[in-house]
């Protein structure tokens, strides 16, 4: 479904990703794990078109997306839930969701998508007239995911969804992501919460200083040294 080959990218003179190859098949849940500063966020930014890759190619369902701008990539069915959520804090929950359905194709199915999001996250329905900025951290993350679902994506990119959440909420959030997955969405998730995320996904990549160091099935990777270290370290 999604295929990256030989991708490198960076900021100014700085290179944050080196020769990355990555593949996500339809229906899969895949994680990218790695320490802070490894380039995980940069990788998702390249996929969603926020930054253009320097080299390499990117394709989605057979269409070449290399170098396409973010607003075009959404139209191909990739939704990016960015690091730090990036909600519109002064807009209501309902308006945030409405903006998720900004594309004409998504607008046409607005009511249906909204019912689906409210079905997954009932608390958003109760809070729909509230400003997004007034929600709790967990609710804000639900809204960020709900907003992404409003564009009717096939693939969802999640950048550290558990960031800044209380431990109880982290567990709940992973359960909610499981629910999203059960709805048939393909998921590529970036996490530092290695243990938890490996229980959620089918496969994972380990990214370190901009390079893929390891890749494999989640249950295999769970046995690896780096997971134990991460578990102790974080």
């Amino acid at each position, binding site marked *: 479904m999604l295929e990256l080959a030989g991708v490198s990218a960076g900021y100014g003179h700085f290179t944050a990703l080196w020769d990355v190859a990555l593949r996500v098949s339809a229906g899969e849940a895949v994680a990218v794990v790695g320490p802070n500063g490894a380039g995980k966020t940069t990788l998702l930014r390249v996929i969603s078109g926020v930054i253009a890759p320097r080299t390499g190619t990117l394709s989605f369902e057979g269409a070449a997306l290399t170098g396409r701008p973010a607003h075009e990539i959404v139209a191909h069915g990739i939704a990016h839930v960015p690091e730090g959520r990036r909600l*519109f804090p002064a807009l209501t929950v309902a308006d945030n969701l409405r903006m998720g359905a900004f594309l004409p194709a998504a607008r046409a199915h607005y009511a249906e998508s909204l019912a689906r999001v409210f079905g997954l996250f009932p608390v958003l329905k109760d809070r729909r007239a509230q400003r997004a900025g007034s929600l709790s951290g967990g609710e804000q993350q639900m809204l960020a995911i709900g907003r992404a679902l409003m564009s009717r994506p096939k693939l969802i990119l999640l950048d550290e969804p558990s960031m800044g959440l209380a431990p109880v909420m982290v567990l709940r959030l992973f359960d909610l992501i499981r629910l999203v997955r059960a709805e048939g969405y393909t998921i590529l998730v970036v996490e530092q919460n290695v243990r938890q995320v490996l229980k959620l996904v089918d496969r994972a990549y380990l990214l370190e200083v901009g390079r893929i160091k390891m890749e494999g099935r989640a249950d295999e990777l769970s046995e690896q040294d780096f997971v134990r270290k991460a578990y102790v370290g974080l």
Partner: protein
Amino acid sequence: MSNLLDLVLNNPLLLAEAALNGLLLGGVLALLALGLNLIFGVLDIVWIVYVDLAMLSMYLIYFTVQVYGWPLLAGAAAGIGLGVLLGIGVHLLIITPILTSPPVNQLLATGGLLFFIQSLATFLWTTDHRSVRLTLPTIEVAGMFVSFARLIAFVLAVVVMVGLYLFLTRTYIGTAIRAVSQDRGAMALMGANPQRIYIVTSAVGGALAGVAAALLIIQYSVHPHFGAAFGPITFMICVLGGLGNMFGAFVASFIMSEIISIGGVVWSTEMGYVIAFALFIVLMFIRPGGIFAKKQ
């Protein structure tokens, strides 16, 4: 102060008339302030040249109506159309190439355009004051005298502001404009082409300048320094209300217009402006983020 006290005691009607005129002036000022603030909210650039664009529309309305004999409504429509074109033109030609430059360069670029327009207007049309001569009556409301043109301008300004409110809250593109003013990058992740949002914003801002031009030309004469007369007060209102804060700009417009109008009756018009600017400076020390900013 004794003048003010005098007026309150001896001629309260005159004071009430000044307050009413202030309210009416505030409507048109609010239109300009909202347009400037809308653009600032989305692009983070203060179009210092904004009121000068309105001035160009005023000239167009003057020439079409007064010289070529068009009906006023047709002239006004042309003025609004010119405002839209100028808004889009400024964005594409001046702002787009420097969108990622430091703010000071952006300010200088729109400031340069301001002096260019002023000089060009002086060169083309001299420093003559030109006005559209309307035979609108002065009407009496409860013993106070109000110019009918002012009243019409106020009512239309309010109607347009209600329209702007509905546009910004009810439509997808209007809501997207508010969203972009909160997070520029995230709206692209929703599938919105940022450049398209910028162009729509600049066009709406330009249209508001055009509407303001139509409402100003029936009250004031136009001259090459019209922008210099109304530009600073418009900018000041935006800062006072909090740059980018639409509600703040709306309220600040009326605060400022009341000070100018009442100060004008009690002392003189010039004194009204002096008080308004002095208050502005004081408030900037007390509340640098605008009157509605949360205290740090």
